[in-house]
């Protein structure tokens, strides 16, 4: 079984997971967003190895050229220095709440994992032979965890994008990359881009209206007002 695993795929899967983890857990926001660029490029290569050049092209265009600028815009890279977001997210979630949320995320992942395991024979690419799909599972789990732990809106938006890519890889594993699957993934890529664009616009506006604490959700806003 191991022999059938392509070395390029293993390297690519490792790159993907590493980029995803840095992107999700780096508190320096600009660096995290830069890792997201690397991540999308790895995703494009992953689609090439899964024999879906169209998806690779779309991932390159939508992911790297359209979605990433949204994040940089949200961080205020294109605006004068006074309007930039603070470079780090210093917020730490209380441990009990974090553990609670992680457990919820884990439960969700277990459910999805059980499903994938259950219809294993029907999977087009099997995870043990395609490390990319394994990377997809790890990415989904990590992104769910990050989504649960972080309160900073930019980081949650990043987590959503990584989660999306993980789900796309799972989709490719479940359904293959036939035209219908590719159409679904292309649509989902466009949706993720539009969602990120909308999110970035809202984040900028919130920051202008209420300052830094507004980016930590409604509790952050309440703390500022008191």
């Amino acid at each position, binding site marked *: 079984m191991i022999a059938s695993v392509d070395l390029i795929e293993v390297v690519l899967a490792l790159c993907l997971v590493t980029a995803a983890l840095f992107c999700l857990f780096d508190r320096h926001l600009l660096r995290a967003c830069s890792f997201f660029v690397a991540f999308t490029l790895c995703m494009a290569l992953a689609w090439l190895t899964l024999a879906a050049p169209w998806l690779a092209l779309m991932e390159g265009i939508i992911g790297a050229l359209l979605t990433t600028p949204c994040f940089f815009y949200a961080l205020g890279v294109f605006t004068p220095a006074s309007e930039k977001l603070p470079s780090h997210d210093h917020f730490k979630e209380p441990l009990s709440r974090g553990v609670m949320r992680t457990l919820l995320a884990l439960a969700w992942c277990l*459910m*999805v994992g059980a*499903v994938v395991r*259950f*219809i294993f024979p*029907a*999977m*087009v690419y099997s995870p043990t032979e395609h490390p990319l799909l394994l990377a997809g599972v790890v990415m989904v789990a990590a992104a769910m965890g990050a*989504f649960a732990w972080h309160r900073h*809106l930019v980081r*949650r*938006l990043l987590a*959503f994008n990584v*989660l*999306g890519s993980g*789900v796309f890889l*799972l*989709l490719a594993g*479940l*359904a*293959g990359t*036939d*035209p*219908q*699957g590719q*159409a*679904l993934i292309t*649509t*989902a890529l466009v*949706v*993720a881009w*539009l*969602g990120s664009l*909308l*999110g970035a616009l*809202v*984040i900028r*506006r*919130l920051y202008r*209206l*209420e300052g830094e604490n*507004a980016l930590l*959700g*409604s509790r952050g*806003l309440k703390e500022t007002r008191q």
Partner: protein
Amino acid sequence: MNWRFGLTGSTFDPLMTSHWALAAALLLPLVFGALAAIFPPRRMWPVALACAVILTAGIFLLIDTRQAGVLRWQWEFSGIGVALRLNGVSMLLLLLTQWLGAAAALYTPGLLRISDPERFARWLWPLMGAVISALSLAWVATDLLTLYIALETMGLAAVAMLLLSGQADALLAGMRYLLLTLVGSLAYLLGVALILGYWGRLDLAGLAEVVEPGPVAWVAAALMGAGLALKAALFPLHAWLSPVHSSAWTPVSALHAGLVVKASLFVLLELWSILLFETFWAPRVIAWMGMLAVVWGGLIAWRAESLKTLVASSTVAQLGYLMVVFPLLLGPDISPLARALAWDGFWLQLMGHALAKAAMFMAAGNLILATGEKTLEGLAGTSRRLPLSLLVFGVASVTLMGLPPSAGFTAKWLLLQSMVISGQWWAVAALLVGTLLTAAYIFRFFRYSFMETAPRHRYQPLAPGMDVIALGLALAAFALGLLAHFPLDLLHGGSA
């Protein structure tokens, strides 16, 4: 069940005019919306002209659907199939969307003219167009890919539209909703992936033939259900509704509460009728959540301090009624008569609520705009100066409370009958409690508005037509109860 959605059964080819009418119904809202972004209309007549074209297309489709029963379209582009259909239900919902959309669009120029100039007002038009196009597509689509495109376009455009006028609280609530709905859309996508991987097809008509109950169908249904529940703001996930609605523009709220939340429910019912037909637990869970929603939404609306919160929380409760009906539509051991009654009642309730809630949001918007007050206490004594707006609110609340002869009454009558036949006493109790709570929060508002001792306000005059449009919608909801046989004929016509 599938014949009810027009998925099976033979049909004639659509007429030539129907092809054009369908294209017009799906694309023109987008085109006109984009045009309006470039040349924002300041008067009502250009909007009326644009709406007239779309409404005419709807009438053409109605005539053809009545004759043929079900209309189907199918195309294939390089291996990707697109399937659309128009039957009684989808035709009714398409008409509802077009008329409600037209009312909201006609209301907008007046609102923008008399309120303070807003930076993003221009963007309202294309987003509204996108929402109406996407809704129309959601009613007619019968394959999972087209449904996904329609739902996502609708969801994103609706959030953007709600947040255009947003202040910080609304933006935060909206942002939370945006993130949740995006994650929800991934859950939906995973469900679709399961179906595509296991059965290898995405068209609902084909799936209806091959799907057999089993863990795959259950899990796919659960994933898709979770995604759609997130979008529809079904009960435990409704918290963002009231902060967002309290600062959103009136026509936007009307469209959202009237139609957008219903689309996810429609798709949920359509998909579950294929994947989960005659299962016991899943519809029950929805119904229990619905009961909680009826009570919780009613209580929140009853304790609400601001008028918009009252109206928005009432949406949560009213959606609860629709959720309570799920076991009757999908559950096992339901007699055909009870199921048919529940089916009629469900759509009548949905339509009545859409019209009444849109009218109510407009009336509330008019009251708030005219007085400059948002709270119930601030609105005390409005009966003297704004009788027409208050009348609209009253007529709309007759439908919400389900008093005869409104659509709400007819719908609840049908639903109660069906619940009694099939012995669903919990659902009956939920319906009655909900009605009492509705009456409680509506009359609480009226008690304030008829206070004679309240100080006089300085009133801002409304633009002409703003009250008339709202009154038209409220009366339509009222008349739908008296003339219920027209929509019901259409609902049954699709099955002949």
